[in-house]
């Protein structure tokens, strides 16, 4: 590895603009003539729209347009869709209700967009939005998914009787029931995974610009996948044909899943731009983000885990109710199914698994993938079960896990996934050592002398990343393929541009991807540029989510680099009158191995473009494109240990230490990988201790600002002890697995296992806030 090549801790190339105020986010974009949009949103969780009167608003100062769903429909704009088909176990397709970008007849959650106001300034648009008069007939609302499927619950979509979207299963029910029946021990729990709001620090935003002369649209949007946005807006929402629609996702201030989806606002801004004749910008305020960004998690599961007399798991039965909110968001259906139930084997040999999942409409914000997407829910189910089982069986949590670890690979689980490589015990050992697990008993006793309650908890997670083999996901219902693309352009002077379909919104692609090029050709990292996020510049790509940019995105770059290298070697062999097989590229030079004959890299590049002296029949230029479709998912795994100390007087939990031992396969930039783990852990600890989206019974979101929703702050967290081990992934050319979601997946059960250990209780609800902990302590006393 060179100082800028693969494996080096290269400081990020993109940082300069961010630390000097030069980042360019959607809200920073100004287009001549640009006006501002404000959405009028439903204040009711469930209501019929009786009348919309916009006359007063239209007459307000600065107002250019006040537009409704009826006009949008009249212009042929389509409904939002969910792009992953799930069939219920009776064979019927999922029941998808219509989601109009602006509600027409009915609103289904607080925050549902109804009217858009466009005005000269945002202030004027806000004032006019206040003057829009909408007459509603309120209907009964339901926010709890377990209640929404009861007979007599309010009916949210006509298409979905009893609000049931699908009733799906995976695995062998009979074998699992038999395992439970014949078990030496069965652990049973009801497990709740709390609803979260992703809260990227940059609120969502969109700027739509219709160019009448060209009959062409440009959309600047806070997207993790601008090409998918263009495809969906074109193919399903009839905004414009793809060749007439450019989507640009510039600097994007965090995503965590919430910016994968195509939301009503970007569609409306594009349509409104044509309608009003001016470029239209919308930027969410934070409360709007809380109300209308896709939320995450919100599962309720009933779980049974069967053991034989040797404490080996013989079966796992999971019955889950997943709250999908008021509408089916773009990938909502795959989260509680193929991203969840397929990971229920965890790191363990489990001969029989059965999962049943009911997805349910409620009068709440749509729920979709949030960092980890289904895998945190699966890990939480398994790792809470393992902890409880260990306590019931009277064995140490580590020993119970060790006894059940999968140790030979490849391993076919009973729930689709075929794990390719791993060493779960190595992560467990590394984590226990780093945490001084052996010394915990003494630390607990010392804390008890101070009147404090100490607890320790572990979690051994696995996840499936590198989404995903296209034919596999196609057979499971995906509406798209999940390959990635890359183009490597060597310029005539030898500098290199890599155009990638991945999108960086904090992940550091401009550095990590450039390291691959530096490694390959020995050119300085500053002579490599990564281009992404613009459908006019970059070939079709699938974007960034599911920790796929490394395993899939970089693999596409490797493929394109292979092609460039092969052509450069051919040119050099011709120029140096050598055999192609003897050419090596090192330190920016193209050499004939074992001789002193060489050419600087740029001369090979230049020769390809002057084309004065190329091998017979060769096309000029040095630019190659590749599409990479993975052959399998990748399987990052690891062990997290959390040690907490609770003050029984206040219920406050302090995290004494948090240890992460991850196996991400090969690593390109360890500094960036560690940063991903830190951030993931903070979100996981946030879920366990602080965060929760709470609706009241009438469907009002009680946690719709940073005054109410507890974001993890610096003082809530310790510095983390992170380390990695490596079983290279055999499925892709770089041997990488992905690291973006691990922290958020592995940490919640570690924290809750530690808290329940400290308190001596079986379970505690997330977030385990001081009030909840205090109440638990006192309920136990009385």
């Amino acid at each position, binding site marked *: 590895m060179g100082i800028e090549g693969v494996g080096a801790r290269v400081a990020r190339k993109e940082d300069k603009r961010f630390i000097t105020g030069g980042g360019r986010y959607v809200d920073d974009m100004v287009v001549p003539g640009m006006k501002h949009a404000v959405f009028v949103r439903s204040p009711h969780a469930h209501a019929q729209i009786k009348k919309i009167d916009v006359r007063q608003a239209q007459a307000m100062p600065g107002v250019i347009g006040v537009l409704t769903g009826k006009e949008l429909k009249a212009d042929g704009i389509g409904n939002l869709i969910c792009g992953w088909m799930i069939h219920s176990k009776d064979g019927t397709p999922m029941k998808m209700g219509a989601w109009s970008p602006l509600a027409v007849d009915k609103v289904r959650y607080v925050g549902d967009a109804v009217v858009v106001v466009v005005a000269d300034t945002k202030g004027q648009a806000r004032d006019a939005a206040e003057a829009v008069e909408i007459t509603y007939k309120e209907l009964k609302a339901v926010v709890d998914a377990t209640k929404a499927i009861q007979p007599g619950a309010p009916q949210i979509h006509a298409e979905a009787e009893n609000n049931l979207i699908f009733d799906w299963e995976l695995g062998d029910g009979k074998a699992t029931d038999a395992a439970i029946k014949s078990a030496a021990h069965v652990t049973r729990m009801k497990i709740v995974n709390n609803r979260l709001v992703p809260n990227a620090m940059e609120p969502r935003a969109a700027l739509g610009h219709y160019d009448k002369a060209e009959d062409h649209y440009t959309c600047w949007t806070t997207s993790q996948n601008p090409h998918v946005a263009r495809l969906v807006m074109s193919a399903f929402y009839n905004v414009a044909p793809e060749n007439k629609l450019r989507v640009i996702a510039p600097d994007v201030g965090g995503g965590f899943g919430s910016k994968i989806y195509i939301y009503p606002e970007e569609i409306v801004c594009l349509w409104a731009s044509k309608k009003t004749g001016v470029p239209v910008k919308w930027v969410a305020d934070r409360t709007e983000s809380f109300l209308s960004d896709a939320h995450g998690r919100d599962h309720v599961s009933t779980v049974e885990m069967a053991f034989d007399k040797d404490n080996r798991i013989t079966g796992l039965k999971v019955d889950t109710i997943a709250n999908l909110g008021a509408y089916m968001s773009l990938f909502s259906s795959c989260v509680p199914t193929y991203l969840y139930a397929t990971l229920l084997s965890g790191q363990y040999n489990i001969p029989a698994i059965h999962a049943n999942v009911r997805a349910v409409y409620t009068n709440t914000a749509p729920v979709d993938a949030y960092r980890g997407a289904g895998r945190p829910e699966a890990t939480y189910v398994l790792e809470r079960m393992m902890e409880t089982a260990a306590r019931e069986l009277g064995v140490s949590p580590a020993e119970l896990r060790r006894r059940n670890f999968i140790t030979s690979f490849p391993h076919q689980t009973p729930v689709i996934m075929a794990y390719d490589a791993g060493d779960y015990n190595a992560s467990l050992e590394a984590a226990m050592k780093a945490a001084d697990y052996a010394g915990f008993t003494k630390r607990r006793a010392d804390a008890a002398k101070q009147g404090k309650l100490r607890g320790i908890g572990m979690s051994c997670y696995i996840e499936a990343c590198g989404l995903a083999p296209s034919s596999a996901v196609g057979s499971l219902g995906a509406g798209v393929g999940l390959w990635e693309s890359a183009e490597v352009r060597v310029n005539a002077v030898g500098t290199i541009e890599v155009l990638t379909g991945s999108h960086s919104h904090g992940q550091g692609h401009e550095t990590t991807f450039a390291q691959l090029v530096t490694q390959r050709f020995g050119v300085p990292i500053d002579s490599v540029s990564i281009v992404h996020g613009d459908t006019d510049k970059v070939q079709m790509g699938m974007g960034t989510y599911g920790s796929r940019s490394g395993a899939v995105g970089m693999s596409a770059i490797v493929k394109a680099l292979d092609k460039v290298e092969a052509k450069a070697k051919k040119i050099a062999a011709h120029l140096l009158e050598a055999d192609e097989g003897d050419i090596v590229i090192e330190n920016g030079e193209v050499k004939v191995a074992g001789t002193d004959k060489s050419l600087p890299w740029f001369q090979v590049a230049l020769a390809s473009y002057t084309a004065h002296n190329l091998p017979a029949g060769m096309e000029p230029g040095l630019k190659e494109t590749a599409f990479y479709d993975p052959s399998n998912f990748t399987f990052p795994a690891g062990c997290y240990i959390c040690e907490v100390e609770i003050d029984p007087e206040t219920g406050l939990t302090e995290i004494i230490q948090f240890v992460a031992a991850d196996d991400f396969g090969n690593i390109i930039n360890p500094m960036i990988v560690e940063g991903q783990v830190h951030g993931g852990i903070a979100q996981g600890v946030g879920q366990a201790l602080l965060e929760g989206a709470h609706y009241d019974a009438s469907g009002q979101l009680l946690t719709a600002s940073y005054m109410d929703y507890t974001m993890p702050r610096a003082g809530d967290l310790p*510095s983390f002890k992170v380390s990695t081990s490596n079983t290279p992934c055999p499925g892709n050319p770089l041997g990488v697995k992905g690291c973006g979601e691990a922290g958020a997946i592995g940490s919640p059960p570690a924290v809750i296992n530690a808290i329940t250990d400290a308190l001596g209780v079986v379970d505690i609800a997330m977030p385990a806030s001081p009030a909840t902990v205090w109440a638990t302590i006192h309920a136990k006393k009385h």
Partner: protein
Amino acid sequence: MSDVSLTVNGKRVSGSAEDRTLLVHFLREHLGLTGTHVGCDTSQCGACVVHVDGKAVKSCTMLAAQASGSTIVTIEGLANGAELHPVQAAFKEHHGLQCGFCTPGMIMTATDMIARHPEGLDEATVRAELEGNICRCTGYHNIVKAILAASETMAKGAKGKAKQAA
């Protein structure tokens, strides 16, 4: 409408703005200084922190008219020409940022924090003082590391200058 006159990043600027215009919007929309960000509506997130007369202030808590007559430094004015401010350099070196959205506010807060603690900083103090700045990407681990490192660098620099003066 209010007349607003400010010194921003060493330059005198003036303009007129609606009375309700917040300082952050004046900086972003009237002066085009888009490095200062808006991440919430309740003065919680700290993405909009700038220095007003030498103190870190959330520019969403202040009207532009209120700030009139003040001297303001934004993230765009922190570096000395091409030379990064030590806090900026430390954020880069220690990977104290990912998406970059909270970063300007973090850096302006950190600069103020270091200035208020000439005796030096420890981890607990840094974490406590970051209460008004939210980051969703980094888990704060490397932000804390960067601020501690910058604090040390600047203390050494100050000592060096003191020696030179003596």
